[in-house]
């Protein structure tokens, strides 16, 4: 409780400082949210923030997550936004190390899965997704192979030439899958991830440039030649939802998954820190959290959020999904990708 009083005092203080600094009202007319191309919420969801606070949320879109982080770093001293949403655990450390964020403990953070939180609440987890191998149920049945159960199975000759994965240097699920293999076959182990990938290439793994190429052209469901594809645990419910189906045509391999967590944070150059905090509170509140799944096909970070029926019915949640420290990722990302490219090219 003491903590909370301190925090309220802090908020009041900041508000006072901001107000005196700007000479205008403490609450601005609008607040700018910087986000990536995949951001989407239903019409009216963000308007609720205006009803609550009188402040309009202006959304600014900036390419993919990596591009967005660079944009925020480049404009750090003269920011183009107050809050950034959509930085994931693969880029988080870079953003944090660049001093992009003002730490903030959101109201309602108790409801957020503690596993997803970051030390010091520098940023707030908003949603997550699991990158997993998906399989085409019908196509596997047609060749008489059972679905693979773990990363080791993918080396089995019966799956030769049947798997398509995304290039980790050009695709974020590709990078996530690479890291899942690194977690399973770590650096320095006798049989490390490089050995694993050499074997995977020997077993005819196909590389696609991005998720769309893999899922929409190479995957057997799209008329391609591979019944196994790196996608998301939420892809089967998406298939059901968009296709108006009763049963998912695809399944998920529940081992060898990697958790992608998306965060929101207050940008350090903001003039409206208090309102920015309110926006973060709003993003983890139930109306937004329950609107997230069907718009972005990821899972809400707030455990109290009720999942849409299609998610509840058609999702197989991974038994174990790798959660990797953002600091570890930052330290190794470039080396891992470069070493992977070398294996891929030889």
């Amino acid at each position, binding site marked *: 409780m003491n903590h909370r009083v301190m925090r309220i005092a802090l908020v009041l203080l900041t508000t006072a400082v901001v107000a005196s600094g700007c000479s205008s009202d403490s609450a601005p007319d609008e607040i*700018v949210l*910087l986000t990536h*191309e*995949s951001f*989407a*919420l*239903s019409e009216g969801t963000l308007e609720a923030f205006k009803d609550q606070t009188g402040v309009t949320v*202006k*959304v*600014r*879109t*900036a*390419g*993919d997550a*990596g*591009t967005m982080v*660079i*944009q925020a770093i*480049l*404009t750090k001293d*003269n920011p*183009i936004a107050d809050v950034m949403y959509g930085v994931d655990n693969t880029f988080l450390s*870079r953003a944090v190390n660049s001093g992009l964020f003002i730490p903030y403990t959101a109201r309602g953070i108790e409801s957020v899965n503690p596993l997803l939180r970051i030390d010091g609440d520098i940023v707030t987890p908003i949603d997550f997704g699991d990158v997993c191998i998906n399989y085409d149920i019908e196509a596997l049945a047609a060749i008489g192979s059972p679905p693979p159960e773990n990363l080791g199975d993918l080396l089995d000759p019966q799956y030769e030439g049947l798997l398509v994965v995304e*290039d*980790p*240097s*050009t695709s974020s699920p590709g*990078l996530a899958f690479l890291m899942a293999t690194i977690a399973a076959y770590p650096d320095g182990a006798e049989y490390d991830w490089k050995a694993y990938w050499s074997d995977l290439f020997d077993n005819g793994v196909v*590389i696609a440039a*991005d*998720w*769309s*190429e893999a*899922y*929409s*052209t190479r995957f057997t*469901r*799209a*008329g*391609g*030649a591979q019944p196994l594809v790196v*996608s*998301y645990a939420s*892809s089967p419910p*998406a*298939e059901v*939802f*968009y*296709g*108006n189906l009763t049963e998912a045509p*695809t399944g998920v391999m529940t081992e060898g998954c990697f958790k992608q967590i998306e965060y929101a944070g207050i940008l350090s150059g903001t003039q409206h820190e208090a309102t920015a905090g309110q926006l973060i509170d709003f993003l983890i509140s139930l109306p937004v959290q329950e609107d997230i799944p*069907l*718009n*972005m*096909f990821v899972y809400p970070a707030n455990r109290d959020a009720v999942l849409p029926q299609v998610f509840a019915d058609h999702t197989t949640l991974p038994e174990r999904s790798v959660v990797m420290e953002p600091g570890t990722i930052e330290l190794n*990302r*470039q080396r891992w*990708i470069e070493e992977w*490219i070398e294996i*891929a090219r030889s």
Partner: protein
Amino acid sequence: MDRDRSLITRSPFGHLGTGALVVIPTLFLAYFFVYPVVAITVRGLTPEGVFNPAVLLDVLSSRTLQGVAAFTLWQAVLSTLLTVAVGLPAAWVFARFDFPGKSVMRAATLVPFVLPTLVVGTAFLALIGPKGVTDIDLTGTLWVILIAHVFYNYAIVVRGVGAYWERIDPALEDAARSLGASRLRTFRTVTLPLLKPAIASTSALVFLFSFTSFGVVLLLGDINHSTIEVEIWRQTTAYLRLDIASTLAILQLIGVGVILMMYGRYQRRTTIQFAHGTIRPPRPATAADRIAVGAVLATTAFLLGLPLVILIGRSLVNPQGGIGFANYSNLFSLPAMSASFVDPIDAIVNSLRFALFATVIAVLIGVLASAALSYSQKRTARVFDLFVMLPLGTSAVTIGFGFLVALGWPIDLRTSVMLIPIAHALVAIPFMVRTTNPSMGSVQHRLREAAATLGATPARAWWTIDLRLVSRAIAVGAAFAFAISMGEFGATSFITRPDSPTIPIAIFRLLGRPGSTPFGAALAMSVLLMVITGVAVFAIDVLRTPQAGDL
């Protein structure tokens, strides 16, 4: 020849007037191109405020990056040669013959230009993929990259050279023929030398497009094929290494600059006899003509038409099976299911609005720049020429981030929606200049003198003579500008912008969701993009046709 040269170098405006023409394009390019590019490069090369020359050395000595640079150049040279070789016969047919459906077909050549790579890729896979109908799997090879570059850039040669060719008086060729020269000899000794400036101009454009190729190489090539543009993107988005990306961007610009200077030597203008009045070309009369025209048109239909027909066909296959328009109606129903999908009407309105702005900017700036270039033979003009072309050889990453770093002052334009048409115009201006410059440089000064004798001011003479004579070329450039803007995705995605999704962005979002329903809707949206572009280009083509009694 000497006499002619002295005629064309004369500007209708005098020295001062020619200088004035340069001012607006220079200011525009200085503020929206040079300043942002310099700003982001300086920023990129000085991480933590200091320049680290080791990065430059690392890049220059990296075996991988040397390989990338060599491949970038190699595939661009091959793509250009192939596109010119395939495009020239078609330019001839479109310039010299009349046949049913000609205007529609000419407009259709521009359609591939606007299509997203992944969408084209699916059609290519259906033809030359591992499960394709031809049983030849070319995926991941250099061939598929070359074929895709021809597919995309064919229109540049056909329309660019064609527009110039049709203004060359056929009497010149007839004279050579009547003196006993064979067709081939006539082409080699009369037509080809006259076409040289147009061929040089258009092949420079094809070269630049192939040199900076991104989507085609990324999606149709494989991990072993990479261009400098792809590498810049990879360094930026995967490694967040702006220093290496900036170094690569500079190397790419230098490469483009050197190549363009070499082109400049071939682009020296010659005055030619432009046909007076609008001559309607004849229908192919002899059997040989008919066979030649038929063969060329069949090639065009095969090369461009087949992938397009596959796309249209696939867009009519319903996601739940059967043939119909379900994909089109899904376009309208999907946004109600999920906000990540764009209402197609919004996307179309946004795209048309941006394309209109981009085209207006490109025509204004491009025509002024082209006029300035045509009326000056000084060395400064050659430098200016190079400078106008450079945006086409600049990475989309550089332009997008450059806007962000540079345009905060005096007015904060960094997140302005106007940056989208401006970025599109930067790519379109070189087209405008290259398509109008050969024609503008060849307007005969005696026509203007005649106008002056009749009492016209230089400006009026330029307006009524030069502009009319080059109106075809301007229309060709405008059509390109429009198409570039309609199909542009790369630079747009690197600009921080209010949510104003264009058609390519709407397609991108549909392609980002699992299942045959969003994918089918993406195909339907692509077909709409094709149709809108085709109709608009057709309209521009019809408008440009000079009226009877025109010069």
